């Protein structure tokens, strides 16, 4: 799997946001798309239940606006993935379930009904994923779509924010069944590599999965957790962190503390958004298009 380098440069050149040009490129992509080419949308860190007007005065409206924007995309994606922190942490088990139900009600308005979920530490870190599993199902699983193998890895339900030996064994067994040139996409909440350990932006045993993936020639990882875009290629593996949909966080190490970036009234929803991912088969290539909450 190859990232289109031109697109990555373009992402950087636009300060992380591709607007009309991105939409236009997707339009032409759709016309040229092969039978097995497809789109999916990644949303992350919606933190439903968060309240803090200086950070996000539209905390109850942002997700709804993003849902409307996704519904307006043409063409519609084949599926949608939420890469964790669906809800904001609460110490109360009952409130946690209430927030998850409210979240589920809002995203039920999405036109696309094939939706993949995984937890973030805010959803699953306090009860080892119990409430999440009740309402959304398994925290780790695989699925296949048009020749691409997807692996959803849970690196938050363990109290130490590790993947754990049992799940690592499960990943290992799954990969044994794959050809070394098979396109593989991994979804996780926390980054698998040491993006910035001082701020807990890593997975304690993430290197074990990355070692397992080394022999494979076409691998991309999509994660959340850091509330901002971040694109890196480490070895043969591409890593793409997504923006959040409640509050942005500062660039790694840019400030002493990783406090949320306050709302800018002059630029509402700045730093928030989601992405559409186009996957082209033969040669497999992925194209990222970043959107603001309201499509801008």
């Amino acid at each position, binding site marked *: 799997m190859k990232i289109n380098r031109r697109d990555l440069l373009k992402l950087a050149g636009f300060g992380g946001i591709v607007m009309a040009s991105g939409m236009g490129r997707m339009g032409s992509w759709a016309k040229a798309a092969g039978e097995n080419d497809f789109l999916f949308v990644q949303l992350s860190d919606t933190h439903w239940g968060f309240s803090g007007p200086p950070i996000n005065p539209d905390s109850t409206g942002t997700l709804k606006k993003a849902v409307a924007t996704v519904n307006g995309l043409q063409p519609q994606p084949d599926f949608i993935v939420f890469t964790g922190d669906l809800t904001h*942490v*609460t110490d109360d088990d009952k409130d946690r379930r209430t927030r998850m139900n409210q979240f589920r009600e809002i995203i039920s308005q999405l036109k696309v009904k094939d939706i993949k979920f995984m937890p973030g530490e805010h959803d699953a870190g306090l009860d080892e994923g119990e409430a999440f599993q009740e309402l959304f199902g398994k925290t780790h699983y695989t699925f296949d779509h048009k020749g691409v193998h997807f692996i959803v890895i849970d690196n938050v339900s363990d109290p130490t*924010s590790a993947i754990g030996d049992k799940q690592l064994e499960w990943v290992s067994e799954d990969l044994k069944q794959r050809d070394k040139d098979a396109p593989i996409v991994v979804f996780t909440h926390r980054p698998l590599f040491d993006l910035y350990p*001082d701020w807990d932006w890593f997975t304690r045993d993430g290197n074990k999965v990355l070692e397992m993936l080394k022999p494979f020639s076409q691998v991309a990882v999509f994660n959340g957790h850091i509330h901002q875009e971040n694109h890196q290629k480490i070895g043969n593996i591409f890593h793409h962190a997504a923006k959040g949909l409640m509050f942005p966080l500062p660039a790694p190490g840019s400030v002493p503390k990783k406090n949320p970036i306050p709302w800018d009234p002059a630029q509402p929803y700045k730093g928030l958004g989601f992405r559409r991912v186009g996957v082209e088969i033969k040669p497999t290539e992925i194209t990222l298009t970043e959107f603001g909450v309201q499509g801008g």
Partner: protein
Amino acid sequence: MKSPRVKSLVIGLTMAIFITASLGVADEKEQVIRITAKRFEFSPKEITLNKGMPVLFEFGSMDRMHGFSCPGLKIRADIYPKKQNLLRFVPEKAGTFPFHCDNFCGTGHEGMVGTIIVKE
């Protein structure tokens, strides 16, 4: 609110952890630092050490599992309740180093931080 009986039990267990650690493993030349973790703070929050002097950290948790991570000094430990949690190291550089809880523990997790000061 906890009942008085529960409070007594928690305090008793914590003391037992510290007494066991102190009697069992502390070295005469070590500086012994006892750190209590509870949602969502460490006590003490500021720790002063001397460069080159061995340190024995004795961790205790008053409620749930926490973590202690000081990336600047490359030390970390899991802190389990009702369990002896010890960490030895020798600070080899002077300076001020933040530490934080790195096992997600709830609403105030992000603010569960402290500072280690290593003097020359």
